[in-house]
Each structure stands twice: as structure tokens, then as C-alpha cells.
């Protein structure tokens, strides 16, 4: 129920209805009694007068009010009609209203909502940028060996989260493309993971280990080979860390990364980045124009058909006798399958080394080789050494156990990553 207008007769009547003396001034008993008697007399007289006059007033009010109302209505109607008919602007207003475009209240509400959302978004961006600055300063303040165990890694993780948020905000308004989906969808079809909320960058940072160490390892493994086959294309280059290190060695590099935020960061490193899906970009380049293609931990995120198409495109776009390198988790090592592979919810399927070799060969590559890296040696079952003077049966038993352990170590704790290194067929001799 809405309260009456405070200036209305009803509001004033409400004020009067609570008419009781406030803070009565001290008076002599005689004056007080006289005042009370006078007030009561006035009230009684007023009540009697109201009671007597009320029917008369009501009749008069009804009669006069009706006539006045009729006169006012007729006059108002005439005035309004004159005003509306005589003004050409009114017809325009009517026309607009009939088209449904003139609802000022709704328009105002809509404008206010849009404006409010815009302000909140801008303030959120401002907050994030400030956080980025703070984190950068904090990062610089972390001196090596400061004794803060794990602080550096946690800091890096936090920083990545903030930057990922900022990237999402920067692209706000379009589809909320999360980094993992964009990275996984290297060839045009949606990834299996439908979540846009999963913080893939933070996940990687937490579970994939020290990124600097990983990068250094990758460079050690492939830089020499890649330097002989330029330009080098990194499919799903992310923030371009690997390409940046290759470029420092004077290697001509090209990145392909569909995520705008990551592509922007890669460009900031001075790398040439194509911000599109790998399949789209590969189709656009001339056949036999690329020196090498490398993908690290990308293929296991793709659907089978997408992966096959990517491999076939790569085989066509590479020059003769060029290299294709794809590094991926090794599911033949059961500790990998049961841990790191299952840990990542964006993985689509485990790629057995034999399967990937087969697919590469079917795509047109030749000389497909596998290289295995990083056995889980920390878990290896220990071999038992036997002295020369132990009995024969003990030596035999120890050898048997060691042989079993070797097999178990291979199956359970084998190499955690492997790479397929394939070459395109050499050019036919002229």
C-alpha cells in the first residue's frame, strides 16, 4: 500500500489524529483545569456541530461536487481535444508510440541497466589492472633464495589467474571463450570440455611443474633439429614462451593461437602470431611452404577426426624432408595414465605411441620415429645387487626378481612423455 502524499488532506488528518499535547508546560492547577475544561468543551461542541451538520454537508458536497466535476470534465475534455488536434507534433508522437518505440520508462530502465553494467565492468577491469601492477611489483620483490618456500610458485600461479581473468574481461561481450577450450580446439570443432569456468591456466601452473624448467627442456630437446627447418610453426603456441626462446636463437618462428589474450601476449614478445584455429591457418598457407611444425601437449585435446585432419594438413604444408614434432603424455606408462593424464579434464583421449605413429604414417609422413622422455625414476623398484659368493639359487632368484622389477618399472613407471618426430617425404629427384 502506498503512503499518501505528505501534503494531502489525508496526511494532515493523520497528523491531527495523533493530536495530543507534547511536553505540556507546567501550569497552575486552576489554569490547567480551566484549560482542560475549555478544550473538552470545544471538542464536544465541535463533535455536536459535526454530527448535526454532517448530513447537510454531505448532501451539499454531493450536489455541488457532481456539478463541478461535470463542468470540469467537459472543459478539460475540450481543452485536451483542442490541444491534441491543433498540434502536428502530437500526431508524430502517436505514430512513434504506435510503432512501439516510445515507452520512456522501459527505455530509461534499459539504459540505466546497461549503463550500470558498463560501469561495473569498467571498475572490475580497473581493479584487475591494479592487481596486475601489484603482482608485478611483488614478483620483482621476490629475491631468489628469500627463504619463502613455494612462494614463488604460488605467486606465479596467482599472477596467471589474474592475467587469465583480465583476458576474459578484455573479450567480454563475445562468447566467453575460456583458454582451455580455445587451445584445445585447434581445428575448428568444439572441444569436449564444455566448461567455461575451468581455470586451465591456473591448473597448468599448479600441476604441470615449473614452466621455465619445461621450456628449457623443450628447447634442449628440439631446438637443434628445428633450427635446420625454418620457419618453425608452433600450433597452439599459447603465450609464445617456446617460440620466444627459439627466436632468441635466431630461429624464424610463427605462432598459431586462437585465444586473443594469449595471442596478444605472444605478440608482445615480438612473435608473429596468427590468431585463428590451426586448421584454418594451415589451409590458408601455400603447400610445401613451412619448415617445421611443433605441437606440445595439444593433440591429446583433439577429437580423432580433427587430429587426423591436422596431421594431413601438416604433411601437405610442410616442405619435403621437413619435420613434424608432437610431444604428448605417454599413456603406456601407467603412472602417467592414472595420474597426470586423468588429472586434466580437457584431455579427450590418451594417444598411445603406436597409434600416433600409425596416424602420422597414414597422414603421409615418412621416417616416423618415437622418442621417450622423463621416466618416473623416483618410483622405480630398486634392483638388487648380488655378491659373488652368494649361493647359485640366491643369484638366480635375485636375477628373476630384478627382471620382474625391470618389466614393472617399464610398464608402471616408464617415460612420462614421448614425441613423435616425423618427416615429410623427400622431394622427388628431378
Amino acid at each position, binding site marked *: 500500500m502506498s*503512503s499518501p*502524499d*505528505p*501534503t494531502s*488532506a489525508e*496526511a*494532515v488528518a*493523520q*497528523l491531527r489524529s*495523533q*493530536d*495530543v*499535547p*507534547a*511536553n*505540556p*508546560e507546567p501550569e497552575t492547577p486552576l489554569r490547567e483545569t480551566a484549560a482542560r475544561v475549555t478544550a473538552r468543551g470545544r471538542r464536544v461542541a465541535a463533535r455536536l456541530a459535526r454530527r448535526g451538520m454532517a448530513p447537510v454537508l454531505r448532501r451539499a458536497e454531493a450536489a455541488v461536487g457532481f456539478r463541478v466535476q461535470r463542468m470540469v470534465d467537459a472543459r478539460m475534455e475540450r481543452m485536451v481535444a483542442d*490541444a491534441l488536434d*491543433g*498540434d*502536428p*507534433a*502530437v500526431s*508524430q*508522437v502517436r505514430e*512513434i508510440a504506435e510503432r512501439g518505440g516510445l515507452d520512456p520508462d522501459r527505455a530509461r530502465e534499459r*539504459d*540505466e541497466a546497461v*549503463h*550500470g553494467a*558498463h*560501469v*561495473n565492468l*569498467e*571498475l*572490475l*577491469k*580497473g*581493479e584487475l*589492472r*591494479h*592487481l*596486475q*601492477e*601489484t603482482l608485478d611489483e611483488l614478483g620483482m620483490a621476490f629475491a631468489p633464495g628469500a627463504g619463502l618456500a613455494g612462494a614463488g610458485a604460488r605467486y606465479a600461479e596467482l599472477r596467471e589467474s589474474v592475467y587469465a581473468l583480465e583476458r576474459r574481461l578484455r573479450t567480454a561481450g563475445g562468447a566467453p571463450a575460456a583458454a582451455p577450450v580455445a587451445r584445445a580446439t585447434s581445428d575448428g570443432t568444439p572441444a569436449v570440455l564444455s566448461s567455461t569456468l575451468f581455470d586451465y591456466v591456473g591448473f597448468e601452473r599448479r600441476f604441470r611443474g615449473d614452466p621455465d624448467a619445461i621450456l628449457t627442456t623443450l628447447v634442449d630437446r628440439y631446438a637443434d633439429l628445428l633450427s635446420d627447418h625454418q620457419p618453425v610453426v608452433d600450433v597452439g603456441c599459447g603465450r609464445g614462451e617456446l617460440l620466444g626462446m627459439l627466436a632468441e636463437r635466431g630461429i624464424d618462428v610463427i605462432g598459431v593461437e586462437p585465444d586473443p589474450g594469449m595471442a596478444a601476449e605472444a605478440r608482445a614478445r615480438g612473435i608473429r602470431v596468427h590468431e585463428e584455429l590451426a586448421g584454418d591457418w594451415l589451409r590458408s598457407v601455400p603447400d610445401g611452404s613451412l619448415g617445421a611444425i611443433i605441437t606440445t601437449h595439444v593433440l591429446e585435446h583433439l577429437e580423432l577426426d580433427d587430429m587426423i585432419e591436422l596431421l594431413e594438413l601438416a604433411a601437405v604444408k610442410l616442405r619435403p624432408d621437413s619435420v613434424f614434432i608432437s610431444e604428448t603424455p605417454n599413456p603406456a606408462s601407467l603412472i602417467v595414465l592414472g595420474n597426470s593424464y586423468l588429472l586434466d579434464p580437457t584431455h579427450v583421449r590418451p594417444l598411445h605411441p603406436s597409434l600416433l605413429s600409425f596416424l602420422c604414417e597414414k597422414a603421409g609422413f615418412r621416417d616416423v620415429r618415437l622418442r621417450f622422455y622423463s621416466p618416473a625414476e623416483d618410483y622405480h623398484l630398486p634392483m638388487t645387487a648380488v655378491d659373488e659368493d652368494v649361493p647359485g639359487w640366491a643369484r638366480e632368484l635375485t636375477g628373476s626378481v630384478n627382471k620382474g622389477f625391470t618389466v614393472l618399472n617399464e610398464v608402471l613407471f616408464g617415460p612420462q612423455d614421448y614425441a613423435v618426430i616425423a618427416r615429410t617425404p623427400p622431394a622427388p629427384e628431378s
Partner: protein
Amino acid sequence: MTAPARLAVHVGRDVPEGLTAVLSALPPDVQPVAASAREALPEGSVAHLYCSDVLPRRPATPYAVWRVPGADADDLDVPVIADAGARHVRPGDLQVSLRPWPDQARPVLPFTRAGLRRLRDLPARLVGEARAGGVSWGVPGETQSAAQLDTWPTLAALASAVVATGEELWTALAWAAPAVTDAAGARMLGLTPEEDVLVGADPATRSRLAAELADDELRAARLARSGWQTARSHLPAGVAAELCRRLGIPRTGSSASGLSLALDALGTPPHSLVRRRARASTVGLPGAVTSGWRPDREEHS
């Protein structure tokens, strides 16, 4: 169509509550955009608003500063905005109030108040006073009547003068009532004594001041005008409009000509009847004691 002017906003980690309200109340032709010292200035930026905790040594001009508690923003020769509830407010600072504007409140000028009192059969000289738990009203010097606190808007709208503090004072200012308060009440709402309100140290003094005010219609009108304007200027919309003015951000339209603009937009002919009626509706009331005050021209849109 011209692009909107952009106000580059540099916020810290915690966004002040009032900042959101003020930015939301910016005129439609002024667009706030987040800015950072590390990135290029957004295109179309004409001024900057820094939170004081991120104010750089050499800020880009023109700029204003939002004073964040605990940060140093004193002695600046630029517009400074004090957040809602800020303890330290310098003269000239823009002060934001997040108190809701009372429902139905509109300025009722002394002339109109007098007419309404006659119409409602109330005393010609009527003083209302808000106290803890209730209100009292009546002719100064005579016995006062008591009423519930929820009738305060009626007294704020119709009394010749009121005595109030806190929320009741805010309500009184919203109805443009000539008001008397204590020093704490004036300070809390950022009011200037003798200009926006009269200030009395004790209840007897305040009642006396209100009685004097009820006799001086011209002074009451000036006080009512100033108090209402100051209260309005503390609303986010008022602060936003003043901020734009002080930063020299160009405005394409103003509330005073809002009706004319709307008629222009509709292509209304210059000598049309509706234009004449619009002009007639905004003409001042003849004989009104308003000191030339035209509240309808001062609304912040």
C-alpha cells in the same frame, strides 16, 4: 553522431562504494572507462579520475581525485571527492551521500507552504520538531502537539520551519524545509551553518531559531533553497554533474533544456501549441517568495 566523452578512471584494489554510484550517475554522454598507467589511454578520454591510493606523481590532466581513506590527497588544487561517510571533508570538496532520497519528496517553497497550510487549515506559523521516537508541532510559543514519527514528511513539507537532526534533517531538506539543527547534524550532512541550515547548541536555542525563521519568510526561502541544493549536490547524480563541470567535460544537453530537447527530437514545430504549453508550465508562480529559485531548472538528470 558524436562519440561520447570518456572519463578515464584509475581505481585501486578496493573500489569505494560511492565511486560506483557516481560513475553510474554520469550523464549518458559521458562514459567511464578503466585506465591504467601501463596501457595506452582509451580513445576519446578527456579527463581522469584517480583514486588517491593510485595517484601517480605526475597525473594526466585534467583530473580529479577520489579520496580513499588512509591515502594522502590533501592540498590538491583539483576537484577532490570525499566518499560517503568520510570524516575529513575540506571546504570545496565534493561529498557523496548514499542516503536514499526520500520517497515523494519535492521542494515545496515557502509561498506554496503557506498556501497549503491555509488550505489544510493549519496554523499560519507552524514549526515542526523531530525528536527521538516522535514529532511535535504547533505554533511557536503555544502548546505543541505530538505525533508519530511517520508523519514527519507532512511537517517537513508544510511547516514554516523545522528542527531536526540525522535522517529527519535529510527528509526535511528533501522537502526544502527551512531547517534548524545542531552542529553535529550539519557536519554529518556537509551543510554550511547560516547558509544551508541554522545551528543551535541546545534545544531551547533551536526552538527559538525556528520560531524566528517562521516569522521571516524571505530568510526561510533562502535557507530552504540553499539547504535543498546542498543536499541534492551530495547525491551521486549531483556529484557526477559537478565533477563533469569542474573537469570541463563537454555536455551535449542539460536538464534545464531537457523538455525543449525532447520536443526538438520529435520535430515539433517552433510555434506549436505544445511548445507554448511547455513554456507556460515552467513559468514562475507570480508573487511567490522564492528569491528567484526555480527548482525545476535545477534537477540533475
